[in-house]
């Protein structure tokens, strides 16, 4: 393939992803009860006419769309950064127990502290994500052990304990149980516009940080010594990376509950086109993450209509086969 055709294919893919994203976003706004026509939606977005459909569109579906885009980008980018920092292709916020940490902290705050506001929940989720992230890094021997699977196992162990504790907490207090249940299943529903805007704001901050350390991540994957020799400030890149992961995962989990495998699926799919460059992978993940989340959400809303399947279930079903293929393919090669 010549350089020119390569560039053409790349442009074609970018255009296809962009078009797909727009179509999916429109579908997200149209599908549901009541079902709306695309043109009707566009009309109502510009001139809210006060009808019931318009109210539903503005108070439920638009925040939901915004949330899906923000959370999709957040989880995908968190996955890219984790994979670069740990030099582990299977690292992912859901698998490594970071989301479980956030959700345990949130449940704890519901049951023990009785916290209700979304702002406080956001902070607590971030703290939980940070603690779980550090724990799993210590247990999994990041930087000391070359074993890819050990980190995953540490994440699995941590997830098992944390979700067990979360479940126990939610069983102790039956009054909070219903509230936790809804949140824990992982869903984009039931969030208002203010919340969606807060989430989007924090996620954009995280994405900017991620792009800022992109070149540093490119050096970091070569190993600490090589990165230092090439002029990277390893500790600073790593610290900012950790903060970014905590920001992104904490916010995403606080907003929609624990959703796994997005951070695994998106970067691996994207790398097939972007290659190993971290900056390109980050940019492409910001675009592809929302697309995946919108697809998952559409499946979640339609597969058991009129009911809704938890979003985390759909992403697990899409993502787990990828994990299985990846771990066994790596093994065969080595």
């Amino acid at each position, binding site marked *: 393939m010549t350089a020119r055709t390569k560039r053409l294919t790349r442009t074609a893919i970018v255009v296809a992803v962009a078009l797909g994203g727009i179509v999916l976003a429109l579908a997200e706004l149209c599908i549901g009860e009541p079902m709306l026509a695309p043109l009707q939606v566009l009309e109502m977005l510009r001139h809210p006419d006060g009808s019931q459909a318009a109210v539903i569109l503005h108070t439920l579906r638009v925040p939901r769309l915004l949330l899906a885009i923000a959370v999709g980008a957040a989880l995908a980018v968190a996955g890219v950064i984790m994979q670069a920092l740990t030099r582990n292709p*299977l690292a992912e916020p859901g*698998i490594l127990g970071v989301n479980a940490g956030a959700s345990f902290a949130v449940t704890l705050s519901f049951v023990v502290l009785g916290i209700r506001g979304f702002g406080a929940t956001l902070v607590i989720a971030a703290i939980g994500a940070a603690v779980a992230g550090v724990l799993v890094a210590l*247990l*999994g*021997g990041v930087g*000391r*052990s070359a*074993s*890819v*699977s*050990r980190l*995953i*196992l*540490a994440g*699995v*162990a*941590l997830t*098992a*304990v944390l979700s*067990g*504790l979360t*479940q*126990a907490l939610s*069983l*102790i207090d039956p009054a909070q149980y219903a509230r936790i249940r809804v949140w824990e*299943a992982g869903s984009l529903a039931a969030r208002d516009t203010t919340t969606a805007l807060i989430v989007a704001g924090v996620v954009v901050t995280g994405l900017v940080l991620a792009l800022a350390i992109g070149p540093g991540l490119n050096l970091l994957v070569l190993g600490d010594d090589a990165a230092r020799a090439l002029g990277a400030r390893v500790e600073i890149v790593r610290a900012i990376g950790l903060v970014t992961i905590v920001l992104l995962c904490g916010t995403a989990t606080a907003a929609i509950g624990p959703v*796994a*495998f997005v951070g695994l699926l998106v970067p691996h799919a994207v790398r097939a086109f972007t290659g190993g460059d971290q900056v390109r992978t980050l940019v492409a993940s910001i675009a592809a993450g929302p697309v995946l989340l919108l697809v998952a959400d559409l499946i979640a809303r339609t*597969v*058991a209509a009129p*009911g809704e*399947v*938890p979003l985390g*279930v*759909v992403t*697990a*079903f899409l*993502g*787990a*086969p990828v*994990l*299985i293929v990846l*771990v*066994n393919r*790596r*093994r*065969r090669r080595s």
Partner: protein
Amino acid sequence: MTSIVRAHPALRRRRVVATAVVAAVLAVSTLGTLALGDLGVSPGDALAALVGAGDPGTVLVVQQWRLPRAILGILVGALLALAGALFQTVTRNPLGSPDILGFSVGAFTGVLAVTLVGATSVLALTGGAIGGGLLAAAMVFLFSARSGFGGFAVVVTGVGVSAMLAAVNVVLVVRLDDVRARAAAVWATGSLNGVTAVWIVPAALTLGIAAVTISALAPALNALEFGDERAGALGVRPTATRWWAMLIGVALIAVATAVTGPIGFVALAAPQIARRMWRTGTVPFAASALVGAALLCASDLLAARLFAPVMLPTGLVTVCLGGAYLAWLLTRRERTTR
């Protein structure tokens, strides 16, 4: 452990102490299960009530309600631990336990599928659990067949299969009505809450048969530790031995799952705890069974009394204990390989 070499006296003393300690834990937690509850009874009264002496109300509570729970705790704990010991011996992997391999999640998928079709009998549920569990284990083995069973790959594959089946389970639960969904969800965590005495005889029979077959199989399994060729030279048929061990392991885990639902991590942790306490090279079967019984009874007591009057499912406590243990195992592993 049957061995032609007599163990060093210090080691033998250690094993006697280990047995005594584990037996004491088992005895205390069994007594706790009999005595503690909404109706508090002193340990002496509880023992007296066992033989029918004392207040008729106390006798009824202890003999009819608490005794079956204690007995089934011991039996199921032993069954799970033996199944884990068999799986870990065959896969030669301390993490090769049925719950990591997706058996428990698969068993729940089976139960849900059977419930969805409309069957409610115990036999149908048990059949569903066994079928689902087998299917999950077969999937894991199929996907990881090329990479061999010794490494971490099989475990991560198990994690993937479990995640997928868990997703299927949620979709199935959504399709059930509220009452059946709740019953299924309670069953899914695995609990000794509400076990019935009906299961004591089948569970005890299974354990008895397993004890006989495992003691017949143990020398061959231990010989496999030397590698297939040398074991062959000793007159052991490696493939047949492995198949038998897996078959027995699956039967044990299936019966245990049928009684209490999938109780996680006992099968994973008990054999390894026994191996460390008894200082044996291979997984000791009898000691594993003892540790498993003690582990499950103690966990059940914790689950029932920790947040009384709320009774947590037993599986929640074992998952927390087992997960912490798994984390510790990971840190140990690194240190020993260095």
